[in-house]
């Protein structure tokens, strides 16, 4: 977050920054259901969208909202829904449908404490594994995160770009702290924002196959109503979009759903680092906890402890290479997170047990203060 970037400076909540980012990305359809702590996203968009000729609808439940954004996306719109833990759980089946039918859309989850109704107004990061594995069936998943209002703005735009590029639902996981903290956001000039649009068919309707196997693994779904009449289904389908029982076709489809994210991992994954080059203790932190970690790393350095931070901005696909590289340099890794080790587990896997991975999990609804992390690092040293 540099202060010298060009743009208009505004003060806003993370949730509002999300709404602003969606509009900047070209989102013109939102469907949602009220849920704390995400409702401000819906409220803001209910004001903004009609002014731009866009559509806002409050649906009757979370599943309906997820279904509606898929329907809208199939007409060519960039569409968004926002929710929190319980709603995210309810959306899983339909989210899986979007993965299977390869419909681009964005789902924001402003995470609160669980399980169940949990802590509606308090932050947590307990949905990070659900984002990956929540829906049944194998498929690749993209999930981003953000630690500030500024990043929420930017990551919302990126979520739309990735959804459109890879024809897949993209999840943005922020937490209650980020969603509700009002802070400075620099809104760049529209011309400085990179916007991606999904592929358009390069064949006439006669020769068009929506799910054609191509080298890039990405299907081309023409918007409904443009003369390309095809079928979309959540059943295993072949290149035509119609259901199939052919074992070859099924194998190809399901492998491709994972592969199409895997082969682009290097383009999708982005990490921030802080004093990692010479670090002896690596910290892996994401979302609002990354801010704690930044502070903690600096305090450690002042105390002479060589700590460094690896901060993923993309949680899925998991930044395996970066974690392994860190593991090969440091003596130990500390993973502070607002759950009981959901990502620490991935870090252990990625580091191939080459260094000890220490969890610091906090699940009482409070953020982790820098001092708590510093103490943990001291302990590890």
């Amino acid at each position, binding site marked *: 977050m540099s202060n010298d970037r060009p743009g208009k400076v505004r003060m806003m909540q993370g949730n509002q920054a999300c709404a602003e980012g969606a509009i900047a990305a070209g989102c013109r359809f939102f469907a949602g259901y009220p849920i704390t702590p995400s409702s401000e996203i819906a409220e803001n968009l209910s004001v903004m969208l009609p002014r731009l000729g866009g559509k806002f609808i409050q649906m009757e439940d979370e599943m309906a909202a997820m*279904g509606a954004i898929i329907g809208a996306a199939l007409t060519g719109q960039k569409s968004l829904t926002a929710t929190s833990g319980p709603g995210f759980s309810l959306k899983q089946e339909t989210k899986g449908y979007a993965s299977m039918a390869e419909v681009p859309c964005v789902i924001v989850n402003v995470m609160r404490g669980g399980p169940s109704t949990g802590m509606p107004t308090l932050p947590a990061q307990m949905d990070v594994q659900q984002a990956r594995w929540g829906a049944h069936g194998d498929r690749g998943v993209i999930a981003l995160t953000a630690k500030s209002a500024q990043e929420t703005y930017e990551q919302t735009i990126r979520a739309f770009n990735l959804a459109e590029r890879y024809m897949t639902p993209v999840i943005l996981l922020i937490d209650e702290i980020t969603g509700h903290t009002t802070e400075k956001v620099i809104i760049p000039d529209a011309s400085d924002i990179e916007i991606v649009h999904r592929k358009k068919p390069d064949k006439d309707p006669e020769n068009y196959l929506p799910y054609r196997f191509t080298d890039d693994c990405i299907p081309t779904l023409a918007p409904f109503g443009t003369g390309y009449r095809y079928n979309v289904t959540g059943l295993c389908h072949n290149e035509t979009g119609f259901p199939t029982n052919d074992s070859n076709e099924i194998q190809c489809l399901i492998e491709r759903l994972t592969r199409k994210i895997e082969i682009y991992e290097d383009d999708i994954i982005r990490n921030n680092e802080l004093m990692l080059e010479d670090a002896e203790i690596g910290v892996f932190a994401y979302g609002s906890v990354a801010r704690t970690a930044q502070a903690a790393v600096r305090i450690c350095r002042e105390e002479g402890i060589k700590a460094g931070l690896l901060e993923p901005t993309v949680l899925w696909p998991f930044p395996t290479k970066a974690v392994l590289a860190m593991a090969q340099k440091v003596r130990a890794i500390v993973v502070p997170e607002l759950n009981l080790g959901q990502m620490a587990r991935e870090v252990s896997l990625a580091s191939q047990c080459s260094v000890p991975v220490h969890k610091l999990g906090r699940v009482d609804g409070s953020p982790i203060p820098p001092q708590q992390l510093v103490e943990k690092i001291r302990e590890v040293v």
Partner: protein
Amino acid sequence: MFDYLQYVRQENFPHIWCAGCGDGIVLKALIRTMDKLGLSQDETVMVSGIGCSSRTPGYVDINTLHTTHGRAIAFATGVKIANPDLNVIVVTGDGDATAIGGNHFIHAARRNIDLTVLLYNNYIYGMTGGQCSPTTPRGANASTAQHGNLEPAFNISGLAIAAGASFVARGDAYHVKKLETLIGKALQKKGFSLVEVVSPCPTAFGRRNKMASPVKMMEQLRDTVVSVEKWEKMTGEERKGRFRTGILRDIEKPEFTAEYAKLIEKMRPEE
């Protein structure tokens, strides 16, 4: 003879429905009605959920969206709001629309959004093997009600009327000409319109309820259906064991996407 080929996806035939199933009859009635109204195949979207009836879109050469169980109306709502110029038809069943998808059904009716819902009511879950649905008559047999169904049934058309639909009609798979008229009126209505089509399922419902023969199920439809006009003149005693078909509601009220268009117009910054 009417030429169906323009409207069907021949490559997907033979269809999956059982011999004697009503679903194919409804499909043909729909196609003939689409043709009569000159509905553009490019500008018509058919959305379905899960179940035997929900396989209909696979056979029709338009934009088709086969969704998850119960959610067809939710997906269709997104399609329609995002692009109100499209004709959006939902094909669903009694289980799909009034059990797992009941919430979407009543809220789309309340919202009065311009969808045409064709709901095939066959009193049973056919595709999953004959389990009880919300419209299985009390006392009837189902694979999950082998001692007889204890629950009362939904009146689907009544539910749609109570929820606020602007057009509600009931037809059946025996009186096909009448069904076509009702589907035509529903397609032309600007607002949430429901056509409940009572349709025989000899395989999953009939076999368990002494009507294994499709002919017998058809005869039963022939003998128990009464027009709304005639129904009015019947006594309670005469109505027993029968049901009425025809237009049950047809009113004018604000339609959601039209209201939304007005909102956008109002919000437009002045030149």
